[in-house]
């Protein structure tokens, strides 16, 4: 247990002693957790036998073995995992300079999850016997990718966060595809993904303890140089610090801490985020004390959460600890956003020569698009192999191929327009519509609907998605107004919403309820069951977007110039940003309803349009609105035929095309 001596700590000496200190927080959490554990222990075993059960249990007595092989290792694992995640989070937040970073930010959990999913499907025997090794491999492989992508940017915080996010999304898309194919067969994986701390021997503890100890010591040694990282890059460099080396080493240690933990106990959300934030809020300002308190608070937090869940399981079904801590984290993130000051430079806009013959290029793109549509409508596998239909035959197939294609293309138009607006508004070519959190809001709405009612109709789905996106939009508007809709803040809000959403899905999957699998289909962005009527509506909305967005072309030309010049040219910054945000959000919400929350088309289309030399707002909008549906048509075609008769959702295919494209761009572009 912790002592009270932390109260006299230097970092808090300014404040009065009556204030909350990290020691009080940790002590309180520990006290509650240990009291609960003692109550449960007393129910299992009389006090006289406690010592014997702990040290040398009688193999003939079930209760003694239960205490020794299940109760005690579970306590130990909670302490170890919580502490490791807390420390990992503290280091990440220091390196990435944002309190929103946590160990999963850099793709660790998603990578481990994907590796286990692949193993479960291909080598189920191995997935059972070598789970830790496989998960560890996946976690490290995902991080290695993030590292490679962020390397040209000298591991700058933003490059790490963005690369981590993209790899998380791509890994998530592949995992989702696997879940679609093998839904029920993956319940074991889903449970692992929701971070259950159940133990039935000491193997996880003896596996974790030495590795984590080594990482802790290394992190402690790095604390001094790491503390200087909170200065800006320039001033840290002027102190003779090898920024690159310190950043790289610290990240590797933090990653190892997280990867070991994830591989041993599964995905546990938000402890890594919450512990360092609580430590800092409670007064641990300097880095080394903050690291130490993060370990203790992380341990106490996870232990207390797990104890609370075990007490609660007397009256309800047991929830895995990782899932529960994820829920606790959502309000915490929203609180945090109020105090956020991300002072990060954006990627510079690339100077591309202006396109001299825009009309010719647009015409060429349009012809390619139409050709692709024709091909996609005519070609397809059937019972007797591939067939190419004549126009007359294709007419009969039209009803099956055209609606889904039209919906996918309409979604492509909307995401492309939405993405162009966001990218021009934020001046950030890496911004995507999903990042403003609106599509995530829509997905959350549908998720909650499916969980709360037994029968889901298309109409109620539409309603739930719209409600979800409007609520998250209002939330973002309310929170972002404070910062004059500063682009980076809006993006971070989106990241936070995404994180919460992923946690929620994980929990749902962990329940093992069959109806969740049907939902996965939509999550993955499927246009599979689109009716002709829905397709007509989708095209109508896309045309509407095409008609309205060009009206904002002047604002979109001015905003990328930056705040001051735009204002000098007579632009009301708050008003124009809010209006564009609303426009972009509504288009993103409509697109999400069509093709699900996942897709990179909103990033790719505007970016390719710029790369082709469409610099000004209007040409870029038009070019993106052709390229977007082109990508989606291709994705729809691939999804329909690649694994026939099985069908890959268009959102997953688009993510698999767009994710690598994004990473390639990031790697090439040196900020």
């Amino acid at each position, binding site marked *: 247990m912790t002592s009270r001596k932390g109260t006299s700590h230097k970092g808090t000496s300014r404040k009065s002693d009556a204030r909350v200190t990290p020691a009080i927080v940790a002590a309180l959490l520990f006290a509650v957790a240990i009291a609960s554990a003692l109550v449960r222990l007393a129910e299992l075993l009389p006090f006289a036998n406690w010592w014997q059960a702990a040290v040398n249990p009688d*193999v*003939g*007595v*079930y209760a003694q*073995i*239960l205490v020794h*092989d*299940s109760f005690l290792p579970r306590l130990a694992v909670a302490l170890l995992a919580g502490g490791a995640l807390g420390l990992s989070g503290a280091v990440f937040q220091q390196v990435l300079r944002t309190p929103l970073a946590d160990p999963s930010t850099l793709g660790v959990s998603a990578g481990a999850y994907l590796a286990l999913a692949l193993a479960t499907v291909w080598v*189920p*025997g191995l997935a*059972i*016997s070598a*789970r830790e090794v496989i998960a560890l491999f996946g976690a490290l492989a995902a991080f290695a990718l993030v590292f490679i992508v962020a390397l040209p940017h000298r591991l700058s915080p933003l490059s790490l966060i963005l690369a981590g996010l993209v790899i998380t999304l791509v890994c998530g898309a592949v995992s989702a595809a696997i879940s*679609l*194919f093998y*839904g*029920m*067969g*993956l*319940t*074991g994986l889903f*449970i*692992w993904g929701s971070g*259950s701390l*159940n*133990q*039935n*021997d000491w193997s996880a503890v003896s596996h974790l303890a030495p590795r984590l100890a080594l990482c802790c010591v290394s992190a402690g040694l790095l604390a001094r140089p790491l503390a200087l990282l909170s200065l800006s890059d320039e001033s840290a460099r002027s102190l003779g610090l090898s920024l690159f080396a310190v950043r790289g080493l610290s990240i590797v240690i933090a990653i190892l801490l997280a990867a070991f933990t994830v591989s041993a106990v599964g995905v546990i959300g938000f402890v890594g985020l919450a512990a360092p934030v609580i430590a800092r809020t409670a007064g641990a300002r300097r880095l080394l004390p903050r690291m130490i308190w993060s370990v203790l608070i992380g341990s106490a937090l996870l232990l207390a959460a797990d104890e609370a869940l075990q007490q609660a399981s007397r009256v309800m*079904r*047991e929830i895995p600890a990782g899932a529960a801590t994820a829920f606790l984290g959502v309000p915490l993130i929203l609180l945090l956003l109020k105090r956020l000051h991300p002072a990060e430079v954006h990627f510079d806009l690339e100077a591309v020569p202006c396109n001299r013959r825009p009309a010719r290029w647009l015409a060429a793109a349009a012809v390619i698009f139409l050709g692709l549509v024709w091909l996609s409508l005519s070609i*397809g596998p*059937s*019972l007797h192999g591939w067939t190419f239909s004549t126009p007359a035959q294709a007419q009969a*197939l039209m*009803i*099956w*191929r055209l609606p889904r294609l039209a919906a996918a293309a309409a979604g492509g138009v909307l995401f492309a327009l939405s993405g162009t607006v966001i990218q021009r508004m934020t001046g950030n070519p890496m911004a995507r519509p999903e990042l403003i959190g609106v599509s995530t809001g829509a997905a959350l709405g549908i998720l909650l609907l499916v969980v709360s009612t037994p*029968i*889901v*109709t*298309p109409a109620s*789905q539409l309603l739930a998605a719209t409600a979800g996106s409007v609520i998250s939009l209002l939330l973002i508007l309310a929170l972002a107004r404070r910062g004059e809709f500063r682009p980076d803040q809006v993006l971070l809000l989106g990241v936070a919403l995404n994180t919460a959403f992923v946690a929620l899905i994980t929990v749902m999957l*962990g*329940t*093992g309820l*069959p*109806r969740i*699998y*049907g939902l*996965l*289909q939509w999550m993955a962005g*499927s246009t*599979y*069951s689109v*009716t002709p009527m829905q397709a007509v509506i989708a095209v109508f909305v896309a045309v509407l977007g095409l008609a309205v967005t060009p009206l904002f072309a002047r604002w979109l030309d001015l905003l990328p110039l930056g705040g001051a010049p735009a204002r000098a040219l007579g632009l009301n910054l708050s008003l124009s940003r809010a209006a564009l945000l609303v426009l972009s959000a509504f288009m993103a919400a409509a697109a999400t309803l069509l093709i699900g929350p996942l897709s990179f088309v909103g990033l790719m289309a505007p970016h390719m349009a710029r790369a082709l030399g469409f610099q000004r707002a209007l040409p870029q909008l038009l070019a993106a609105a052709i390229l977007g549906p082109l990508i989606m048509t291709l994705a729809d075609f691939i999804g329909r035929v690649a694994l*026939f*008769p*099985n*069908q890959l959702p268009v959102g997953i295919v688009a993510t698999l095309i767009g994710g690598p494209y994004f990473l390639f761009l990031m790697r090439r572009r040196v900020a």
Partner: protein
Amino acid sequence: MMRRRPLLGGLLASLAPLRLLHAEGFAAASQAGAPSIAALDWGLAETLLSLGIVPVAVPAPSWYDRYVVDPALPGSVVDVGLLFSPNFELLRELSPDLILTTPGLQAAVPMLQRVAPVYSLNLFQAGPDTLAISEQATLALADRIGIRAEGDRLVGETRLVLAASRQQLSGRVNGPVLVASPLDDRHVSLFGANSLYGAVLRAVGLTNAASGIGGEFVIAGLETLGGYADATVVLLETPAAPGMAKRLVSSRLWQTFPFVREGRLHLMAPVLGSGGLPAASRFARLLGEALTGEGSSSP
């Protein structure tokens, strides 16, 4: 062997191969003009087979083979894709007379109706009268296809199988029975009264040890099994975690469970938990075999 087995047990034993023959007979008939039906759910497919009709199309048949096992799916059945996204174009090519779905596939119904008439029904619904619902749904299905007599036969046969197992098990099991299924090396599903397994336990006159479970099933830590001190445990293998049940046996905690020490643990082959009457029969039959140690394979 026969002399120790109760009369109904013998009847049950002779029923199993008979039913298979029956299905084969109808497979031949279906080519001769029986209705061609696509069954977009494994429970529907097994029921259809037991009604004597071979479906033309079933999603993910390789998974049917692992989850349902019996009645076996003939090789002629076409794979129409994934469980929640059957391939419309392929279905159109097969042009069945009728498409059977569950309410879970609601979103696809408008498009499916362009292929053929759609009949949507729930053969399994978690609740206190699962078997009654399943019987009604089976009869409704038989009515819809116009083979009421086959429906009555299947309901009757299922009742016979349950009664046979009841007789076979009567007086042979002391204390309650817990049905569990391993998910990984630390977690199991425990099946409550509202599950298909719970319904069968009731029908064959056994007490469900997990009577406190409200829903169909709960996922619990392995250690909770030790709390069922007086229970006989039936550990259902799942196709999802092959060989897991055997793996658990090696842990020390497992060895201290009362039902392991006292020899009240029985491993059992997979049974589709969301199936209809054929799944209930299969579970009852396997249960009788496992708990009495008598196989019913030799007539």
